[in-house]
């Protein structure tokens, strides 16, 4: 029985790590490939989740939707919806320099959150959308868990394959050139804004996908699930710890940091039991956990900012196309 408990915990752990991996991979397209700092990840995550929920749930008086569409349609719709929001946001804000873009994305996420909270006709506000269907009819318990994990793993692999293909493409080479020297790229006659918007939209679509996966995994979503902490800060720490610019790093970071995040309460409990951590801190373990993740981030930034797996571009950008 012990084993079953640990096993199902592991399944849940890997599922969430996988969802976060997709999120981190999307962020990597924006930050790692293009140097765009998106502090509104939670917004796109939420848009994806809500879109999937609205598309797939049964009809309800409380919120829009009830289209009862299949799982895959929900995933695709989530990606499209996030993409559209990203397009709108991007066209306005991507002309801004990186610091300003960061602030603008906070604003965007905040507006999205207010929107989701207040437009009750659409989202049922703070009460959230329940009963998001599970895509695997007939499976329950550990079977369901494993089945869903399998789906998530497949999507992580597909996402990884897609972003890796993108990374080796001429398109990404232009993105790297923009990162290095924007003016040179403009002088070469390419629209920097277009490439930036494309990268931003692509990354956001994967964030939407992660949101959809999250919605089906939880079965219930509300604005509370998409706080800046869960939806933005954690993915960022994952990407930085794992290695910005490196897709394997993104996945690795997701697993490692999610591990730290979920194990910390257990660790704190343990330390409390043996007397190192005082009781009142143990009660507020969730905050201590945030503090420790923040501390971990700072340590990484000071000692090894490139992360565990540093970026490795396929080819230097200033060599002519036909050499080596």
């Amino acid at each position, binding site marked *: 029985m012990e084993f079953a408990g640990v096993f199902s915990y592991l399944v849940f752990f890997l599922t969430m790590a996988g969802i976060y991996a997709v999120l981190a991979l999307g962020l990597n397209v924006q930050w790692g490939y293009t140097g765009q700092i998106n502090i509104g990840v939670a917004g796109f995550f939420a848009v994806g989740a809500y879109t999937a929920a609205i598309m797939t749930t049964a009809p309800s008086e409380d919120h829009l939707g009830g289209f009862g569409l299949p799982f895959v349609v929900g995933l695709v719709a989530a990606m499209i919806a996030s993409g559209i929001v990203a397009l709108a946001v991007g066209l306005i804000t991507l002309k801004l320099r990186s610091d300003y873009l960061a602030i603008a994305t906070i604003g965007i996420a*905040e507006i999205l959150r207010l929107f989701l909270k207040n437009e009750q006709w659409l989202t049922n506000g703070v009460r959230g959308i329940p009963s998001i269907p599970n895509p695997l009819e007939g499976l329950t318990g550990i079977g369901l868990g494993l089945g869903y994990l399998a789906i998530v793993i497949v999507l992580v692999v597909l996402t990884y394959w897609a972003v890796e293909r993108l990374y080796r493409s001429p398109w990404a080479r232009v993105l790297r050139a923009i990162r290095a020297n924007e003016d040179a790229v403009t002088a070469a006659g390419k629209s920097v804004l277009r490439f930036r918007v494309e990268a931003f939209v692509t990354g956001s679509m994967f964030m939407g996908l992660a949101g959809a996966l999250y919605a089906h995994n939880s079965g219930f979503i509300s604005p509370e699930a998409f706080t800046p902490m869960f939806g933005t800060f954690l993915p960022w720490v994952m990407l930085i710890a794992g290695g910005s610019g490196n897709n394997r790093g993104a996945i690795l970071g997701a697993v490692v940091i999610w591990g730290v995040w979920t194990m910390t309460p257990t660790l704190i409990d343990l330390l409390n039991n043996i007397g190192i951590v005082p009781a009142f801190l143990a009660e507020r373990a969730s905050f201590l956990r945030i503090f420790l993740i923040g501390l971990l981030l700072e340590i990484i930034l000071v000692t090894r900012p490139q992360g565990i797996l540093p970026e490795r571009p396929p080819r230097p950008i200033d060599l002519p196309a036909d050499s080596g």
Partner: protein
Amino acid sequence: MIDIVQLLIYGIVLGSIIALGAIGVSLIFGILRFAHFAHGDLMTLGAYFALVGVAGMNLPMFFAFLLAIAATAAVSIGIDRVLYRRLRRSHPIILLISSVGVALMLRSLVQMIWGPDNKIYQAGVQMPWIVGGLRFKPDWVMIVGGAAALMILLHLFLQRTRLGKAMRAMSDNADLARVSGIDTEKVVIWTWLIAGVLAAAAGIFLGMDTRLHPIMGWKLLLPVFAAAIFGGIGKPYGAIVGALIIGIAQEMSTLVISPAYKPAVAFALMVLMLIWRPTGLFRGKVL
């Protein structure tokens, strides 16, 4: 008509609070070249330090205020010495991300020590003054007056003292400042000191006007940044003007849109300014 004037008054109060935060953000942006995302949580920290003074040590608010701004200034300088200083040569984005980490650490510290619930400086409701049909909370006199006093002190510092001029010089051109022999590290320390003092004041005033809550400062971060950008990076006077405009606009907006969307107003104004005149009202830096 009365409604509009009432909203104007709310806007001035809010704008004064935002201004204190925005000045600090603008100075840090101008001198240290990065967006300090932990600024809101510095405000929160200041507010809670004052709570220690008032509730824990039973000090009158005035002394608690002084204690809190000193403590926050010390923390602010300390964070720079321990962390940001090591990242001085890093890309501004790394500093930005680092400050997000600091924001979370400060916030979680507040939550660990004081808990996640609302707190207030003193129990009991203040009776508002009714003057000519307009409502005034007595605290507002202290808030707007206190903010104005701090801004005047800052003005005198920047215009009349050697170090203040050096700060303006470094904000204009840090390389030239170095080349001229200005002690740039000293200017940096004073920048954090001033930013800490003003942020703490903003937090305390906010706590007086509303209540204390671990995310009180974070919620104000967007309007604070919007004001700093609106006014022009590195232009503290611009930040003040920007803050008042944004504060008043946010309150006035409730005439036409739902109050829930007030933060969106600050954001919209910031984006409009960035599109129209990226250097801001007082033509500051473009980073």
